[in-house]
């Protein structure tokens, strides 16, 4: 039993990613979408929050939203995997429930 969490807000502006990480359980997945994709980049002031949890939690980022914002996948944090919408659907199907951190 595991959950797919989606986070759609910039981690530099709001506490959504942090709250999501604080409530996710080992084996859960967190998918960053929309303005949430900024949380997937390496070398930022919030990168360590994600890096510390990568492993216990699996992190994904929506590639079309990354591209829209001009972030090359080469800049992603280690352990964050880019998926397209088909991958998003597959993640939603694989996990037992979806929780949106709106």
């Amino acid at each position, binding site marked *: 039993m595991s959950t797919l969490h989606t986070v*759609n807000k910039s981690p530099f502006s709001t506490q959504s990613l942090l709250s999501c990480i604080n409530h996710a359980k080992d084996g859960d997945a967190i998918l960053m*979408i*929309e*303005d949430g994709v900024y949380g997937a980049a390496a070398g930022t002031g919030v990168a360590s929050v994600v890096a510390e949890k990568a492993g216990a939690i699996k992190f994904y980022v929506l590639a*079309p*939203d990354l591209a829209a914002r001009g972030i090359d996948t080469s800049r992603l944090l280690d352990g964050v995997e880019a998926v*397209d*919408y*088909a991958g*998003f*659907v*597959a993640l*939603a*199907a694989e996990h037992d*429930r*979806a929780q*949106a951190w*709106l």
Partner: protein
Amino acid sequence: MKFGVVVSEGPYTHEASDTAYNFVKAAIEAGHEVPRVFFYHDGVNVGTRLTVPPQDDRNIQENWSAIAKEHGIDLVVCIAAAQRRGILDENEAKRQGKDADNIAEGFRISGLGQLIEMGIQTDRLMMFGD
């Protein structure tokens, strides 16, 4: 697998209705079913036929109407949220004494029970909002 989808933000203002649309398209392409999309909060504003987006931009309402028609998706606009925001169909306009309505093709106005029912009858509920 059956997906239920909720759209909670209005068109153009927030990416939510775009993301939901792209998700629904991908789900159908992957062989899943999306029996219903429920529009709540400002999401009800997706269902007006009066939008005139710039010619070089997408038409969010028309995209939803088209995919719904092609794949038999039930597009439900929450009546309580719609009344607050001025989204009406012909019946509602008559009942409320309003001289115009603005609901778009393929959308219908109904109650919040349709949201709960969708949660019960689908395998996964996906929410897109702010």
